[in-house]
């Protein structure tokens, strides 16, 4: 919100000449010559399982570091950060949604939504009243108000994914990364889920990168990238 003037020339996410080799598994290597996402874009990254999607997400989130090349998130080369700083950086810049089991089942919905703010002070500063914001996000995502105090484990899968979306959106991080968030939902819920997610992300010009193997979702996104076009995986006998 501070940068209302769009700085489109600085991509929210940019990968250049990235090479990643799994430690101890010399036979598997992932190469990404170039990939860039602009601010506010919604991008679907399509790929079959085993195409290196998970590794790519780990690289973007900084839980693994490329042996060579540059991964820039919001202008910062994350491989230049120490591992502790990368954890903080991830919390500040990236909202994450997984395939399933997104939430701490024993914690309340509200605590789950507020959890990333605990590790991201700057992101927390952008939220004047975290509890009200969690409430607002829930109602915007179509979750009933009285759900906030409920234990997350008691929610349906569809509701859990929406709570995960609220957690990714709170504090408006510049990038949301979603790893097959809709695969555990039925077709109608999938569309509805993406609708409410995009409504929120567009309101804050947040970039959304979603990974999936399901091409049917393509027309809801601004852009579709086939992982095979941007990345090369090598599997051979070392």
């Amino acid at each position, binding site marked *: 919100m501070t940068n209302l003037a769009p700085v489109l020339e600085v991509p929210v996410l940019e990968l250049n000449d990235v090479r990643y080799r799994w430690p101890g598994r010399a036979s598997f290597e992932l190469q990404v010559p170039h990939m860039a996402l602009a601010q506010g874009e919604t991008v679907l990254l399509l790929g079959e399982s085993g195409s290196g999607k*998970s590794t790519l*997400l*780990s690289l973007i*989130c900084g*839980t*693994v570091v490329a042996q060579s090349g540059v991964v820039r998130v919001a202008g910062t080369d994350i491989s230049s950060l120490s*591992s*502790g700083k990368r*954890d*903080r950086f*991830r*919390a*500040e810049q990236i909202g*994450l949604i*997984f395939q399933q*089991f*997104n*939430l*701490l*089942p*024993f*914690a309340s919905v509200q*605590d789950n939504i*507020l*959890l*990333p703010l*605990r*590790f*991201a002070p700057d992101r927390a500063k952008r939220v004047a009243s975290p509890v009200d914001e969690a409430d607002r996000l829930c109602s915007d995502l179509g979750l009933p108000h009285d759900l906030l105090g409920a234990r997350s*484990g008691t929610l349906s899968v569809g509701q859990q994914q929406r709570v995960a979306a609220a*957690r990714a959106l709170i504090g408006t991080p510049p990038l949301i990364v979603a790893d097959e968030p809709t695969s555990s939902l039925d077709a109608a819920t999938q569309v509805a889920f993406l609708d409410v997610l995009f409504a929120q992300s567009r309101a804050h010009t947040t970039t959304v990168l979603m990974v999936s193997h399901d091409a049917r979702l393509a027309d809801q996104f601004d852009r579709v990238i086939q992982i095979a076009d941007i990345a090369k995986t090598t599997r051979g006998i070392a």
Partner: protein
Amino acid sequence: MILRLALGSLLARALTVAMTVLAIALSVMLFLGVEKVRTGAKASFADTISGTDLIVGARTGSVQLLLYSVFRIGNATNNMTWESYQDIAARDAVDWIVPISLGDSHRQFRVMGTTSEFFQRYKYRSGQSLAVSDGEVMDDLFDATIGADVAETLGYNVGDPIVVAHGLASFSEHEDQPFRISGILEKTGTPVDRTVIVSLEAIEAIHVDWRSGAQIPGQSTPADAIRQMELQPAAITAALVGVKGRLQVFGLQRSINDYVEEPLLAILPGVALQELWQIVGIAETALIAVSGMVIVTALIGMMATIFSSLNERRREMAIFRAMGARPRVIFAMLVLEAAVMAAIGALLGLILLYLGLYVAQPLIDSAFGLWIPIDPPTLREVWVLITVILAGAIVSMVPAIRAYRMSLADGMMVRI
């Protein structure tokens, strides 16, 4: 919030956590209980006799003399003669002297013959005197004053007759000379509570028709005739002595120990008690060590449950990691969790201990004559609790390090 989440995670595993906490609580209760009984027993022993400077008896071990004369534990192997008693009583240094004659019993309680001076001179719990709660101190030859426990256990009241048995746990009773209960003493928490006190002469009186531990057949002297007799005892078991000045204690003790007419022993109760502690000390240390090991076992049990919970909680840890928690936050959370479990366990153990004391205090008192006071936790006990919590935290670092490594390797993606 992290604390709330850690507590939430614990609550979600309530059953295993409760078992772990209970194990810690019981071990803490055991440890502190042993401490309480130990210090209570010591205090109770130390409180039993006060104001007495020397205990004199036939030559034996000093601990043994203390045990049988004051605590009615064990028996005297020898008596001291009445002549020696009188000789010592006549010494300049002696302020007062009270003879004690043991050997007979009533039911499970010992009978002690003494003089009425015993009730003024015997002091317990730093200088408290015996007091009569009902009736009065024995006055007549066939009067008996009984301790509070005797009255309570056997349901005796003032005026009731009682029959004294010869020896201990004996079936031959001195039925000819029934005694009358003249008074009941107030509870003292000392062996006096479990003693039937009669006059020194009475002990002689009931043995008038007895020789060598058996009644002379057909002989039964009527009570009136006994009253006319000279009932000077030939020997007594021991004597409690008070000296005129503190400094004279050692001189008197030495001269009694060197008494040539008869092998005698004089002991300072406090010193003999110290010797007793030295003997009991080894058993004490063993007891503390064993109950300490029980705490260690409980803590290792906690470590095992944390270890086994790690796999099912990989998802939970991955979520924390994805939300930006560093691996050391995961580490800290596990240690915190263990510390919380240990703290709850320790506090619960303390509560159980006090509940247990509350319930068991009268039972222990009546069974062992041991009054364990219910006091607020001592500084030492507080330290035990703190140590348990710290030890719990330290022990949990082993699984926490594993969780740290796991969460580093897993990152935010868990493939299960």
